[in-house]
């Protein structure tokens, strides 16, 4: 397949000129989206509380959050499917708040695929083009048999459909109805319908959540590859952190109608701005220890961790460490936990420890060989490397800390 990409890119590039653009100047088709103070409430429930977000042209942005955090509502507001209560949506410098979805030059992929069940795959993919290139009368069944130039237009549409079908490897399905397709095939058809008219922005609302695990991993790679090829802005909504981390240029973590952090995946993971971000991203979940500040360090369950913060001494803080960054100590002088359960993942071992003073169990991810002989009930001494420790205040906000140079 890699050999074919170049060729298809060329086909794609040359064809784009024949696609009539909705915006007056095709040169402006960049796909820059900015949201300013978007708010939405359903009755008394505030779904979105002042969302600000700037998405640069061609960026793959994932909106990640638990269900009910308002991420789908935000996407629907960008699409124009539901109006916001306040705030503005701007696409390529134009405010689109009052425009219907079809005039925003976006395409959307729905979680349920939303294919028209009475149309074949080819007809489904062709719908956006027929809606734009043919008028009301020309779309009547049988009209193409009249001498009206419509048959040339429909041939052109058919040609475009074939091109998109080739890109998605669904050429052999074009004459089938959606009811005869598997979930993954429906997904490709839905992608095809979105791609066919080269929109400025793709909006995807949990497009992979109805697929089985294996197919989801496969489609993840395929969508990311598609993005690299098309270079079109993608706004992708998901609750699956793996999708967010693997595909996107930038992850926007949303909770309770607010954006907690919008950063590239590695920053989200290694440098979370909020405890809830740290807890939502990463599996197993990040470990939490109670701590308090001293004059030049953090005290965690009696162990001194040489980290300096701007907080006054004796302030309570929450200390978070990812499971794989906790190391097993040799002596039992510091923090220790009682092993209650262990999970063998093959390459790694997950040790579930009860540590007195911690509300939740502490999970340590360690290489299978180093922990092989530990028995359930035995005491496991731990050490927290200062570089691995993230410090949050009691409200969950991240506290900057620097390693204190100790003599």
């Amino acid at each position, binding site marked *: 397949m890699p050999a074919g990409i170049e060729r298809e890119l060329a086909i794609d590039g040359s064809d784009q000129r024949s696609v009539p653009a909705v915006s007056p100047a095709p040169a402006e088709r960049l796909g820059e989206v900015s949201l300013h103070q978007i708010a939405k409430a359903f009755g008394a429930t505030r779904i979105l509380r002042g969302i600000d977000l700037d998405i640069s042209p061609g960026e793959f942005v994932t909106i990640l959050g638990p269900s009910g955090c308002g991420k789908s509502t935000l996407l629907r507001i960008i699409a124009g*499917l539901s109006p916001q209560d306040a705030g503005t949506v701007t696409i390529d410098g134009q405010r689109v708040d009052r425009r219907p979805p*079809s005039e925003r030059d976006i395409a*959307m992929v729905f979680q349920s695929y939303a294919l*028209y069940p*009475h149309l074949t795959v080819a007809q489904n993919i062709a719908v956006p083009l027929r809606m734009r290139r043919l008028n009301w009368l020309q779309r009547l069944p049988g009209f193409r048999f009249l001498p009206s130039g419509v048959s040339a237009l429909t041939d052109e549409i058919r040609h475009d459909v074939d091109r998109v079908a080739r890109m998605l490897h669904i050429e052999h399905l074009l004459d089938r109805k959606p009811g005869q397709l598997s979930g993954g095939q429906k997904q490709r058809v839905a992608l095809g319908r979105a791609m066919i008219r080269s929109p400025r922005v793709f909006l995807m609302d949990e497009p992979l959540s109805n697929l089985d695990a294996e197919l989801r991993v496969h489609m993840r790679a395929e969508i990311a590859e598609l993005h690299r090829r098309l270079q079109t802005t993608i706004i992708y909504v998901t609750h699956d952190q793996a999708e967010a981390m693997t595909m996107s240029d930038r992850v926007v973590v949303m909770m309770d109608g607010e954006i907690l952090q919008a950063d590239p995946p590695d920053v989200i993971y290694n440098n979370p701005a909020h405890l809830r971000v740290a807890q939502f991203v990463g599996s197993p979940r990040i470990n939490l220890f109670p701590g308090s500040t001293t004059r030049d360090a953090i005290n965690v369950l009696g162990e001194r961790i040489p980290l300096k913060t701007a907080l006054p001494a004796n302030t309570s803080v929450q200390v978070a460490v990812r499971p794989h960054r906790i190391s097993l100590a040799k002596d039992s002088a510091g923090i220790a936990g009682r092993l209650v359960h262990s999970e063998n993942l093959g390459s790694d071992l997950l040790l579930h420890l009860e540590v007195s003073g911690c509300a939740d169990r502490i999970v340590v991810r360690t290489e299978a060989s180093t922990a092989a002989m530990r028995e359930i009930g035995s005491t496991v001494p731990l050490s927290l490397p200062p570089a691995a420790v993230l410090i949050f205040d009691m409200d969950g906000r991240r506290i900057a800390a620097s390693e204190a140079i100790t003599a």
Partner: protein
Amino acid sequence: MTASPPQSWRRSATALSLAAPALILMVIFLIGPLVCVILLSLTNYQLGGSTLQLIGLGNYAELAQDPTFQRSLLNTLIYAAIVVPGSVLLGLGAALLIEADSSLRSFYRAVYFLPVMATIIAMAIVWEFMLHPQFGIVNLTLKAIGMQPHDWLHDRTLALFTLCAIGIWQSLGFNMVLFMAGLTSIPSDLYEAAAVDGAHGGLDRFRIVTWPMLGPVTLFVIVITAIRAFQVFDTVAVLTKGGPSKSTEVLLFTMYSEAFSFFRTGYGAAVTVVFLVIVLAFAALKTFFLDRRVHYS
């Protein structure tokens, strides 16, 4: 898992015994009478008569020659040809309008459904009053706005169409409720996809989503309405009795008068068989041909 012969025998015996009550009732109440009617239609039996003779297809030969029956069949076809599209399209229109806005939805639904629940005989009497040539509200209204009053039920050219109008009024509500059920089952995703794909306004939406998605409901509604239209009897019996001069003679009324006014049971049975063939043809058309075209899989 393989079932040994005695086991499979016991299973089919159980199945048979469970199905038997329904099967027996079906034979007694549905298939039995049907067979009786078909057999009767081959005789010259008269109600209360002590003898009967098999006359083969004699009754059918007479039907083919009978101007009353021909008139009756034609009238029934005209009635169905007006009532079916009328009540289906108006029912769909009413359903779309009521679904479009949630205010007063249940009120409208109840109002439109009222004629379905009301006894049609009682309603026919109300219609008779309303259509009375002298003091009926229809003619009074027409006179008030300066239009020509008509004798709706006793004018040979008008009577059948008046009955058609009442027929539409009666079945519109039922069709509307079926369409409303069909409309609520259309996933909203499809409308949203259509909006993103460029469907502007209601007409585009209707063409690309609503109409195709209503396919199964529409087919069902058409077939049900057609069968009910062929069954028209109550309004004819109460309002016109087939007149004036057989202008509203319809199949079931012909069957009724042959069998119970003229006591020609055998001949009436032949009319019934013709009626049944037409109704069965509709059901067969739906099951074997049209169903496949509206269920998209």
